[in-house]
């Protein structure tokens, strides 16, 4: 294809991505290096018959002028990154000096908003992803062994948890685990504790969020693995059988190697999606026990005062996180490509 034709064909989607993805990234980076202007305050002395009083008012005109001169706000360098709501450099070094042992240091660090969000996001990503792979594989093997007639309906119901809006899906689960809901009361009976409430306990909230994550994403792994199982080479399987491989050995030496490339694909998609975990935290009203990076950004932007610089700094840190997460894949693709 000629360069010119290619250019015209990709123009619409390139312009869309340039204007609404690339330019905003630049704008987010620039914003994170600035903070809003402080309002210019003037003090006026009012003198009357009973003495003088000092009054301070906002100089609207001067504030406006300042905004016009520097529409982005005051340049602050990396101050926003270093403040208490982000990397909290000061608090971390203080905690480092004061803490007696690792445990103490860790618990102090995890009280800081950014590290709290980071720890949950990472825990969620690296616990849910492997579980999704395992659960999806087990379901795929089970469905593959089932009678053909019931496979269609099973696939239909399996698609539901994945396709349904994440906010809605997590609400449905949340209402059931409520202390007054059906699962909640069942847990109370099982634990023998009538006061048990998942919402009130940090570890249980974490477990609940991760359970939701697996419930939501396992169907994806299941469908991909199930499609992979349909293409297993029957001859190889048969020769393995003739050579005396039992069922487990067949799975271990024929099926799993066949599914390995699919595993890389599912893991990559899951890492990207789990790192942005956000909706369940809103639905579960779990922010007291667990926050994520995406949730912090949303929280900064949705408050009474929109904290744009703070949200921008968290966004940049999140993008860096995604880049680190993706770098092994990118490096591998680059190597494959240069070899060609």
């Amino acid at each position, binding site marked *: *294809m*000629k360069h010119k*034709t*290619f250019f015209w*064909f*990709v123009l*619409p*989607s390139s312009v869309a*991505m340039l204007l*609404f*993805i690339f330019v905003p*990234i630049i*704008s987010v980076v620039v*914003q994170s290096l600035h903070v809003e202007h402080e309002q210019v305050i003037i003090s006026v002395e009012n003198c009357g018959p009973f003495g003088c009083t000092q009054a301070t008012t906002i100089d609207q005109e001067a504030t406006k002028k300042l905004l016009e001169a520097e529409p982005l706000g005051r340049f602050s360098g990396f101050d926003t990154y270093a403040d208490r709501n982000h990397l909290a450099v000061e608090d971390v070094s203080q905690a480092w000096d004061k803490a007696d042992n690792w445990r103490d240091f860790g618990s102090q660090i995890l009280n800081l908003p950014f590290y709290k969000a980071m720890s949950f996001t990472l825990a969620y990503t690296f616990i849910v992803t492997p579980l999704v792979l395992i659960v999806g594989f087990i379901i795929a093997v*089970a469905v593959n*062994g089932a009678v053909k007639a019931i496979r*269609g309906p*099973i*696939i*239909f119901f399996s*698609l*539901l*948890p994945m*396709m*349904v*809006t*994440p*906010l*809605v899906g997590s*609400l449905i689960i949340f*209402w*059931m685990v409520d202390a*007054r*809901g059906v699962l909640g009361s069942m847990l109370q009976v099982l634990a023998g504790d009538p006061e048990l409430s998942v919402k009130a306990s940090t570890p249980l909230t974490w477990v609940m969020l991760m359970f939701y994550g697996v419930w939501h994403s396992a169907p994806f792994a299941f469908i*991909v693995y199930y*499609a*992979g199982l349909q293409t297993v080479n029957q001859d190889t399987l048969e020769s393995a*059988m003739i050579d005396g491989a*039992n069922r487990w050995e067949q799975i271990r030496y024929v099926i799993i190697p066949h599914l390995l490339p*699919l595993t890389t*694909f599912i893991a990559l*998609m899951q890492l*990207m999606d789990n790192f*942005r975990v*956000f*909706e369940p935290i*809103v639905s579960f009203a779990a922010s007291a026990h667990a926050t994520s990076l*995406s949730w912090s*950004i*949303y929280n900064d*932007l*949705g408050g009474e005062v*929109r904290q744009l610089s703070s*949200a921008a700094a968290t*966004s*940049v840190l*999140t993008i860096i996180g*995604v*880049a680190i997460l993706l770098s092994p894949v*990118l490096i591998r693709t680059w190597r494959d490509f240069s070899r060609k």
Partner: protein
Amino acid sequence: MTVKAQQRSALLNILLITVLVVWMVMAAFPFLWTLWGSFKVEGDFFSKANWANSLTGTLTKTETGSAFTGMGYHGAWVKEAFGIAAINTVIVCLFVVTISLTFGTLGGYALSRSTYRYTFWFLIIALIFRAMPPVTLVSGYLPVFFKWNMWGHLPTAILVLVAINQPFTLWMLHSFFKNIPKDLDESAMVDGCNRFQAFRYVIVPVMWPGVITTGLFSFLLAYNDFAVTAMILSKENQTMVPKIAGFLGSTQVKGNVMFAVAAVVSVTAPLFVMIMVFQRQIVSGLTAGAVKG
């Protein structure tokens, strides 16, 4: 002739059936439970006394006289004007899907036919964009949208969602077009068509299976989005999902939880129908990326 190793032991059979039953209950039960419960009053759906109340509807009977009530639906659709949000969602989804597919088919086709090195870079950049959480872009949008008075309107949300949709749409359609033999459009060009005519008269008629599958996923992205639409739409222009989140803020008032439950069922119903009709396309779409590797 039966092969001994292919027959399953009874134990293995039981294990397989258990896995299937447990998974089916986990996947389907929450939806059935919520659907059933949406026709009850709050005292039954969240029953302090006995969870079985939500099955029998004891309090619903005493409060309304019948075992089923449409009060939640009445509250959501009539009192809280959920219908407006539904119309907004329909508008947003319709435009997002049409525009994304138009841009995506052109781009995806070009990416599948060009043999130059830059197509690789184009796709890699799209992959990086796909990996970024959309909410990270919002603080970049807001100042500009406020300045140009674009904030809060449906067309703005449509533009943003189209752009966020592009990386995925390009990847998906790129792999679909790769499967359409090159000879088809090249022979049309030998016969005197230019590139665009070859695309229009030869490729367009055979591309629909791929386009429909991609369209389904574009629709899901627009329909399910919460982070972006919640931040850039004003209260009057809200789509359904942010509207439900709005119900949650006001749950202190008795009965409002049931509005949210009814709204949740209303949002899930179209998806249910969609999966039923397009199950095959969805499955093929999910595996399309994987088979390519």
